[in-house]
């Protein structure tokens, strides 16, 4: 499987670390709502289909990426930096390359 890192270009999945479900919402740090924390830490949807998830390019630029991956086909439908403000031109690889 290749993950097209916006900075580095497509790289082998072995350069990446799975960093969990990107759909979970972290409660306010001061919140004491145990149900909300429990949902954030433990509840996962495990869909057969499109799944939003974080991958860190740990063997490359170390950015966390928000990836939409189809769990049935392993097809990657969308990749973006997890950090929304990473938008400068120096953060985009020019031209497509394998």
């Amino acid at each position, binding site marked *: *499987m*290749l993950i097209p890192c916006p900075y580095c270009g*497509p790289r*082998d999945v072995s350069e990446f*670390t799975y*960093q969990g479900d990107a759909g979970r919402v*972290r*409660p306010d*740090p*001061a*919140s*004491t709502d*145990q149900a909300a*924390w429990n949902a*954030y*830490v433990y509840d996962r949807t495990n869909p057969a289909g499109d799944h939003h998830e*974080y991958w*860190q390019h*740990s063997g490359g630029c*170390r*950015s*966390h990426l928000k990836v939409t991956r189809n769990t049935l*086909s*392993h097809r990657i439908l969308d990749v973006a*930096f*997890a*950090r*929304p*403000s990473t938008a400068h031109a120096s953060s985009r690889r020019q031209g497509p*390359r*394998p």
Partner: protein
Amino acid sequence: MSPRRGNGGRIDRTRTIRFTFDGRPMTGHAGDTLASALLAGGVSLFGRSFKYHRPRGLLSAGVEEPNALVTVLRGEVREPNIPATTTEIHDGFTAVSQNRFPSLDFDVGAVNGLAGPLISAGFYYKTFMGPVLGPLKGTRFWMICERFIRRAAGLGRAGLAPDTARYERMNAFCDVLVVGSGPAGLMAASTAADSGARVILAELEPRLGGSANWSAETIDGTPASEWSAEAVRDLAGRDNVRLLPRTTVWGYYDDNTIAALERVADHKPAPAKGEPRHRHWTIRSQKVVLATGAFERPLVFPGNDRPGVMLASAAERYAREFGVVTGDKAVLFVNNDGAYAAAAGLREAGGTIAAIVDMRAEISAEARAIAAAAGCEHLTGHAVVGTEGGKALSGVKVQRFDAATRRLSGEPRHLDADCLLVSGGWSPAIHLASQAGTAPRWDDGLQAFLPPAPTQAWLGAGAFNGRFSTAQALAEGISAGLTAAAGKGRPAVAPAVGNAAPFSEPAPVFEVPAKGKAFVDFQHDVTAEDVRLAHREGFVSVEHLKRYTTLGMATDQGKTSNVPGLAIMAETLGKPIPEVGTTRFRPPFAPVSIGALAAERFGDIKPERLTPMHDWHADNGATLYAAGLWLRPQIYGLSGETVDQAYVREARIVREAAGIVDVSTLGKIAVQGPDAAEFLDRVYTNMFSTLPVNKARYGLMLREDGFVMDDGTTWRLGEHDFLMTTTTANAGKVMQHLEYFLDVVWPDLRVHVTSVTDQWAGAAIGGPKAREILAACVTGTAVDNAAMPFMGIVKGDIAGAPVTICRLSFSGEMAFEVYCGAGHGTHVWEALIEAGKPYGLVPYGLEALGTLRIEKGHVTGAEIDGRTTAHDLHLDWMLSKKKPFIGSAMLGREGLVSDERLSLVGLIARDNRPLNGGAHVVDYPDEERPRYSLGHLTAACYSPALGKHIALALIRGGKARHGTRAYISDPLRKRFGEVEIVSHHFFDPEGTRLHG
């Protein structure tokens, strides 16, 4: 007469190659495979079958070979189960046959053939249930038998000698990967290359050209083999093309990631200097052209496995490519026209055709003409119903057969024959497409599975697509090459094909319904009757059938047997083949050497991490110990000292004088930025924003779920500049944890984290004399209590190198951590050692470090095991109530604060004998039946400070048990004894020594 005839073939008859087979000296020519050379030498018996030990010869001439497996010897190294058909000979090449005892010609295992009915389908499953009746019921009798059965049943024997060959892995990137170099592949590669694409052409055979090498056709007016040789020369001369002969593409993975094995040096007496034996390629290609051709299928009839029975195309190949004729009384048994080309090929090479038996009543005029030219008996509407002979074929029995009704009639008739060439049609080699995609499509006309619609970026061409003529292959190659290269070039005109080989769809018959052992899967000895038996026993799904009979599960992965097996299954079920379905092909397409997969990741070239002072340790008597990838000094043993004696001495001297230990392996992370302090407040359970510059603080980190993740000190080097240290083992994990929170959870924080573990060398110097030693060598700063209070940081120099020193202690003594640039590490370390000599300073290793920390009750990874809370480790004083932090919301959960949790205590052995980590603590003094574990030991040592064997343990009730007694139970190490439960602060609980 020698089977090697005339002057034909693609071998170099001027070069004689000497090799041995089963100890017998043999010769062949350059360009021969082991199979062709042995055939030329008159060998017909190549091996014994898997289960019944039946004599077997060559079935094929290629990678699909199920029978002729040999063991290749390279010195002491044995490589079993290598097809003779894909192995090139070289001078000194040595192979032996396998699965026979004592010899290939006389094999005692052949009695298994008589026991046939006992070892039919599902034999293993039935057998290893064990006897359910009789005197051996419920015994382990069958486990004893298994040893003997396993020896009798099987393939080659693996060797015990270590494989000394070099293997390598390689990555490649290209626009177009073409798999297969027959006419279709060659055209695809050259068309794509013309368009400017980066092209890789992989071919599993040594010689590129595929069927052009053994075809009687002409292409573009020249013999096919000359046309292909010219096409290969042209490709080899291009900068944008890489040719990979002897390279088996074995796996098709997601996103066009392709795995291939190149046999770089197997065909040479020895590899060149530094050259790998095998090179494993991982190829990432934008597009893949699959031009993998097709496999001819055998027919299923009694005695179809006798040596001398061979695929028709294989015989044609041996004749045309190697100049070896397989028979002077050859009989063909076919269900299609294509095989008639074999008759022509054999005859042109000097062989004689005795008869052509065709199960079809009606055949084409073209085929009829070939038969007439061969001058042989032509029996249409007939089938072979048996074979005769022993280790070689002497004759066949034929009978009238109606292919439409599948009925035999009339009396069987004998034909003399020295070889029987069979053809049951062709199966496209769709393995890679099947790996890459969905279920294949059944074609009723071709009686074959065709590739599925692509779900990845590949295109097919030629016989792979079920387009069996060379003209179609050339045309499809051009079109695939052009499409794969994104259509940038102009389509070439396909060269004309002359003397085209005959072709027809096969009669839809896979099996001749005659009585006798008729094999479907030769390599696993699965018969047609086994398939029916499996059905009778309820295995009706094709997946179950495969597993129960082991059909298609041998090293050849059923390349010749899958479709016939499925056809018989379908007939038994009374369903059409597409409804029965087929199993998906899985990687590898052909066996892959484990060495090539491991490549450089074995032996002494696995990566290791060395500290800046590594060489000093090695030169000064350290025993090095692997801690993760790091190599760390375990002890610095004096001559004659045991490990125990050494660490006890080292630990004692630390408390009496001073010791120095290399702590460079601690994870070090630069945490920088305007929000660094705020970030640390959120990450650690305690406050860091209040930490003054040039001070350090011990910090505790939790996971989101409230369990302890890691601990360490963090130093404030500037207003916006922190140096965080982590435990050695968790450095990478903590780094990722911080990066995750900065990227995902708090992207608004302006903080950078950078791994600086390797930037700094660290030496911890501790003991009553530590300060005096520092004072003796540090310049540029005072090191007294005023300049360096507990947790204070100063900058100075040692022997001219800049150092940063922090007063902190893991040993419980007055201690300092001295950091300097890693490139100065040895220089500074040596200066400290020198300065310490008058004070009795010793270097100490991990064992003494562990001893000192156990005496102090400090926790490490042994206690921070992912299941302990701050409360369990008595670190709850570090949980700030003033702020939320990672884990703060979850740590108060019921299960995490229960009194029943395991918590940290100290243990002292009452019997003054050593304790071991991992031992359990129990309440009952019953050594034989230990029960009701209270918890377990996490670390143990002999404490020189206490003069006792002590341990840290996590036990239920924890503190409440202080002062009570229990027992440690360690049955595996035969250790049981009474212990006293005490506080984990064994030594100097008030910390007076720390403050000097």
